């Protein structure tokens, strides 16, 4: 594990990295640094490693050449011996206080342009961790790194929007230097700046120039402003490049212009000339420094009221802190006196303020003169052309200059009313009843036509041509003003004329047209459809668009209303052979909705034949249990294990069942035999497993034949575009075009340029096929219990199973041969050992071995946490075993690259309170592992909305007490409780015993696990025996 950091030194960037303490070649232990900065940071990564890492991540830069090795000193929270590692590195927890102390860091000094052009410009949105293997496990970008990358984008934004001015500054060695300065006048930029200041990780302020300096952090504001100023100047002058030097006698302003580019900043000129330049610059830029007080002048453009072309520009004073507070010029002219109080805001000379501002606006907007020819002007009329110029250019200039501007609201939305085309779709065949008769699918033939449009409005050809011929930039169409670019309109007309010919295509092709309009073609502003097509394209938005079905008779249990809607929707798409993606939040019951569908199609549609379900190994057991519970009538078998059926045998076996459950790992390995079956349907659970379309798993699932396809996922895929593509490619192949064209058409415009139009188009395209409900949706919340308990069934790994069996066999012999207290002791110790094995083999063995891929529970936990964290939720994880807790903390910290808290019996009270306080703040850690004994009572951890019981206590009272840490009566959010149970082990058997016999449960509550010791040998053997289904066998 490596954590990359970057620091701002005032002149350049400084890249360094931390690594795991254990992996350091030089294990120098730091003494408590009394004199800050004297001691090298004990677990920093060597420079050579950083260079090779950077070369891997950013191959565009020759890092060995550009970056120079350097040292600096940085303040870090320091315990007794060591600096605090950043989150994600396994901390050697040092109890006690942390104080700031300086450490010497060796790293790479990187020039500003290199950092901005080489790193900031390539900000990958994806996590690198998977690919960016540094040979040392995972790579994390520290938040300081992320922060400076953000600041780099901010500078690019400022430069791109030309928010800078040339200026002068005192030189470091006396004299003056020419500089480019950023100008923060736009409220949006000020907002970003403010947010950057408050988001800044304190470590960014920890740079110290000399090792012996008094340890104090710089102010965030100073650090950021210093960076913004230096970076702005440095980038611009580098980009402009050197120019030939003016001669010595050139006028000072020419020398200044020269010094604004290239390396040489200094201006050498007689003092008097420089003074003149300073004064001139001050005068020139005075406008940018002005204070406008609590009121400012505001111009409001009102559109013609009576169908005329008379726009009206009225003059007002406007409160700066409340733009809706306007005082018209008419009222201002009534105000006597010098000081006026308006709505508790006092201000001076309102008339003069308004007049002075109007005088200034005149310089930006000379036509205003016309409106100032009377003693008490209130406004002036503009023609449509003038109004357009005002809207397009002047309004921006005025706003940038600090004046208020109010324009009709449609102007802001005008991009939604540009000329384009709408796709009109009509079924070639009309079905009277959408639901029962229509066997339409993506291959159904539809008629299509292009209609010219402006925004939502369809315009007929002749009218459109007339509008284009007007060559007016601002035109009123059916009462609405629209900005038109005649050239665009002509391009649209030309494009449309080329489209004549085909009028009937398949639905898939028709929808694909949105995809295949050339990049320079017109915008597609919408899709109009009729008949069942309309119903279909509306997706779930129109709740009337599909029939709400009854719960299938064979379903044991009750579906919640939204689950009935969900399964009806699945059935609706399934009947048409469309692939559907059910993307409900975790805990809303995607599994039962699919089970209901499977039953429904067999009971009500007469489907015969197998459906294939593919899921991660970790949830196979869960599916088994859920199917058995809700649809015992479904004939199901699990295709896994070394003794799994092959070839013909498999095909026959499959044909005798309704549901075949298999895993992603096997899809590729057993593709040959899986492909021999004509599946009724294929369901992918945790479909994010095929998020990378080029993996073998993803390619394999696409090769399987079936009548319909369903993908289940709990992560919001709309925002992960390549994942979306991969899943849609499985569901409805070809629908979103090729991977490359999808990337060009959607991924780049949306993710890089924030293209809202494209995002909207994509949403329209996928809307019919994705159903996502979130648990915070009020309509869903009312259907959900506040506290929702789920049992999460896990399987054992082969290692776990082998250990389990060996321990049972060995101990059962000894139990049979013993009596009394010895027997009891043996039983209880066996119980503990087995529970530990179910948790993790390493817990049982206690050998500190690696944790990956050895525990079914742990693997499932990671999957579920991944989903929870991506939703921004927080989780508590309870375990009985403090050692397990420590292992979980270390493992999860690595897996999620973030800090994980762990509370156990050995934590002092003040530390415990501190942990709780941190967890309860929004900023704080998201995962809190607690040993059941330490975390049972007296804690208030209501920030969590998920509670995991990694192992079972068999004592509902204790478990509930723990659960209630997160759950408080009157709490507004729902809490989900996940109880982990290993299938086929004593965990499940005891759980079933308790469920079956409530009286036993009562007994258990009273006595804990002691009752087990009263069982006979046979009973014990039954209880402890490992059932064959327990093992995951791959």
């Amino acid at each position: 594990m490596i954590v990359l950091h970057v620091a701002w030194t005032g002149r350049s960037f400084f890249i360094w990295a931390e690594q795991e303490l254990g992996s350091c070649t030089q294990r120098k232990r730091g003494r408590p640094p009394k004199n800050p900065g004297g001691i090298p940071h004990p677990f920093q990564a060597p420079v050579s490693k950083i260079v090779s890492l950077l070369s891997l991540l950013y191959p565009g830069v020759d890092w060995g050449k550009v970056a120079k090795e350097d040292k600096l000193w940085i303040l870090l929270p320091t315990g007794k011996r060591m600096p605090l590692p950043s989150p994600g590195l396994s901390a050697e927890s040092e109890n006690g206080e942390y104080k700031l102390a300086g450490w010497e860091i060796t790293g790479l000094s990187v020039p500003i342009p290199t950092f901005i052009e080489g790193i900031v410009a390539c900000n990958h949105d994806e996590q690198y961790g998977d690919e960016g293997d540094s040979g040392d496990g995972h790579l994390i970008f520290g938040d300081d790194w992320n922060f400076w990358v953000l600041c780099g984008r901010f500078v690019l934004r400022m430069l791109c929007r030309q928010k800078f001015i040339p200026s002068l500054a005192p030189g470091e060695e006396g004299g003056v230097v020419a500089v480019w300065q950023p100008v923060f006048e736009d409220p949006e930029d000020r907002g970003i700046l403010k947010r950057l200041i408050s988001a800044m990780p304190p470590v960014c302020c920890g740079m110290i120039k000399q090792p012996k300096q008094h340890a104090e952090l710089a102010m965030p504001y100073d650090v950021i402003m210093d960076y913004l100023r230096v970076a702005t100047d440095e980038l611009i002058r580098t980009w402009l490049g050197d120019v030939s030097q003016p001669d010595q006698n050139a006028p000072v302003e020419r020398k200044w212009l020269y010094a604004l580019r290239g390396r040489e900043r200094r201006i050498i000129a007689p003092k008097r000339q420089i003074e003149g330049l300073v004064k001139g610059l001050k005068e020139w830029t005075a406008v940018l420094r002005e204070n406008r007080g609590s009121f400012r002048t505001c111009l409001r453009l009102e559109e013609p009221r009576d169908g005329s072309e008379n726009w009206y520009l009225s003059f007002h004073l406007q409160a700066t802190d409340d733009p809706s507070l306007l005082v018209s010029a008419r009222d201002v002219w009534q105000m006597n006196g010098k000081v006026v109080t308006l709505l508790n805001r006092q201000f001076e000379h309102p008339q003069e303020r308004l007049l002075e501002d109007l005088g200034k606006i005149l310089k930006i907007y000379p036509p205003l003169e016309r409106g100032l020819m009377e003693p008490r002007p209130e406004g002036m009329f503009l023609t449509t052309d003038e109004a357009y110029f005002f809207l397009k250019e002047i309004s921006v200039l005025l706003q940038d200059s600090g004046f208020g501007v109010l324009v009709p609201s449609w102007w802001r939305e005008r991009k939604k009313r540009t000329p384009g085309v709408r796709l009109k779709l009509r079924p070639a065949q009309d079905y009277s009843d959408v639901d029962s008769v229509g066997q339409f699918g993506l291959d159904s033939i539809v008629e299509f036509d292009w209609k010219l449009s402006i925004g939502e409005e369809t315009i007929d050809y002749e009218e459109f041509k007339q509008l284009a011929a007007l060559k007016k930039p601002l035109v009123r169409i059916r009462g609405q003003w629209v900005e038109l670019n005649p050239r665009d309109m002509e391009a649209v007309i030309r494009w449309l004329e080329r489209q004549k010919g085909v009028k009937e295509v398949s639905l898939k092709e028709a929808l694909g047209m949105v995809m295949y309009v050339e990049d320079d073609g017109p915008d597609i502003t919408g899709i109009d459809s009729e008949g069942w097509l309309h119903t279909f394209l509306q997706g779930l938005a129109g709740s009337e668009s599909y029939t709400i079905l009854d719960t299938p008779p064979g379903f044991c249990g009750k579906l919640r209303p939204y689950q009935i809607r969900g399964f009806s929707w699945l059935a609706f798409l399934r009947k048409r052979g469309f692939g559907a993606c059910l993307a409900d939040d975790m805990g809303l019951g995607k599994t039962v909705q699919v089970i209901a569908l499977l039953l429904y199609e067999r009971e009500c549609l007469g489907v015969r034949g197998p459906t294939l379900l593919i899921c991660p190994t970790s949830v196979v057991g869960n599916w088994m249990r859920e199917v058995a519970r809700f649809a015992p009538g479904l004939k199901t078998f699990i295709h896994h294990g070394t003794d799994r059926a092959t070839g013909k045998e498999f095909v026959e076996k499959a044909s005798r069942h309704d549901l075949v459950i298999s895993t992603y790992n096997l899809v590729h390995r057993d593709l040959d035999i899986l492909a021999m079956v004509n599946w009724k349907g294929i369901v992918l659970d945790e479909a994010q497993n095929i998020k990378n379309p080029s993996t073998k798993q993803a390619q394999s699932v696409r090769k399987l034949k079936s009548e319909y396809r369903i993908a289940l996922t709990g992560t919001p895929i709309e925002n992960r575009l390549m994942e979306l593509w991969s899943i849609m490619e499985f569901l409805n192949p070809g629908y979103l075009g090729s991977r490359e064209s999808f990337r060009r058409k959607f991924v780049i415009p949306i993710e890089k340029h924030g293209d809202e139009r494209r995002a909207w188009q994509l949403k329209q395209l996928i809307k019919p096929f994705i159903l996502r409900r979130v648990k915070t949706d009020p309509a869903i919340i009312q259907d959900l219990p506040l506290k929702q308990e789920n049992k999460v069934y896990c399987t054992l790994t082969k290692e776990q199973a082998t250990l389990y069996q060996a321990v049972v066999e060995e101990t059962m012999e000894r139990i049979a041969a013993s009596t009394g207290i010895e027997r009891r002791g043996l039983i209880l110790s066996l119980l503990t050992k087995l529970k530990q094995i179910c948790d993790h083999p390493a817990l049982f063995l206690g050998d500190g071995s690696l944790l990956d891929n050895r525990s079914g529970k742990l693997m499932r936990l990671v999957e579920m946490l991944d989903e929870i964290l991506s939703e921004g939720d927080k989780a508590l994880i309870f375990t009985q075993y403090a050692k397990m807790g420590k292992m979980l903390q270390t493992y999860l910290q690595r897996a999620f690259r973030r800090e994980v808290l762990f509370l156990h019996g050995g934590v002092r009270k003040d530390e415990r309170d501190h942990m709780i306080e941190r967890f309860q703040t929004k900023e704080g850690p998201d995962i809190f592992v607690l040993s059941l004994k330490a975390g049972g009572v007296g804690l208030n951890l209501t920030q969590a909305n998920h509670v995991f019981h990694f192992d079972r206590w068999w004592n509902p009272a204790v478990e509930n007490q723990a659960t209630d840490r997160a759950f408080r009566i009157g709490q507004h959010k729902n809490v989900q409780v996940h109880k982990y149970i290993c299938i086929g082990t004593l965990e499940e058997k005891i759980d079933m015993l308790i469920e079956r016999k409530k009286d036993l449960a009562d007994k258990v509550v009273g006595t804990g696990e002691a009752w087990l010791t009263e069982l006979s040998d046979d009973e014990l053997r039954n209880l402890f025996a490992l059932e064959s289904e327990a093992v995951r066998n791959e």
Partner: protein
Amino acid sequence: MMASRGKKGFGSSWWAKQWLEALESFGWDSRLTRGRAYARNGNVLDVEISPGRVKAHVQGSRKTPYKVEISMKTLSQYEWDQVLDALASKAIFSAKLLAGEMPDNIEEAFSSLEVSLFPRYAMDLSAHCTCPDGANPCKHIAAVYYILAQEFDRDPFLLFKLRGMNREQIMEAIRNRRTSAAEPMTAKKEGGLPQEIEREGSSQHDAVSLINYWTGKMKSMDIKIAVEPPLVEQSILKRLGEPPFFAGKMDMIRQLEQDYKKVLLRAITVGYKD
């Protein structure tokens, strides 16, 4: 030291020019020219303008600066009323004056009146200098005339002040004409600092910040920064106008414009890099 700005120096605005033309029309051209170099080289040490009177110190060939005093006829109350009526007749006059500019169409407002802001006859002005030169204007007085042009350029209200009314009085008189009845109120002191992002608003490092030392609030803030081209190109340059010290040097203005364009293009390329 009163350094003059620009190469040509005096009277870049029309009213400053008018001032100089008025003086030249008195047949003083050659004598005035002698003061120009003085004014340009900063020999006029200070100028104080009060109603009807200008006092200045001019560094001559001797060690002690000469004292120059110029008197100008102030307008009578009747004349002022006419001027103020004219000024109040169109809002643009006040607007421009307050924005630091002499309204160029103010002349036509005055032309109907028998009043002028500028001296009409040599006798409207009387000047005195402590130098031994008997000529009037001597080059010290001439230098002050030039500096006055520059001062009027800087603040158009000074011309009014010289003719008898200061800015406050004028604005109040116009305001009274604008609003029917005026009630005098005590003025409050101007206040307020330029709108800077408040430095003190930026988060203080305290004991608590050690908790999030490595992370700050990066996780929860979710800051999105769009790199996008400006709505109006070169907005700042357009608003600031030409730098005063670039007067007449078109190549330098164009250079600056090109620089802005170059930066925009480069920033887009970098910001949009795929």
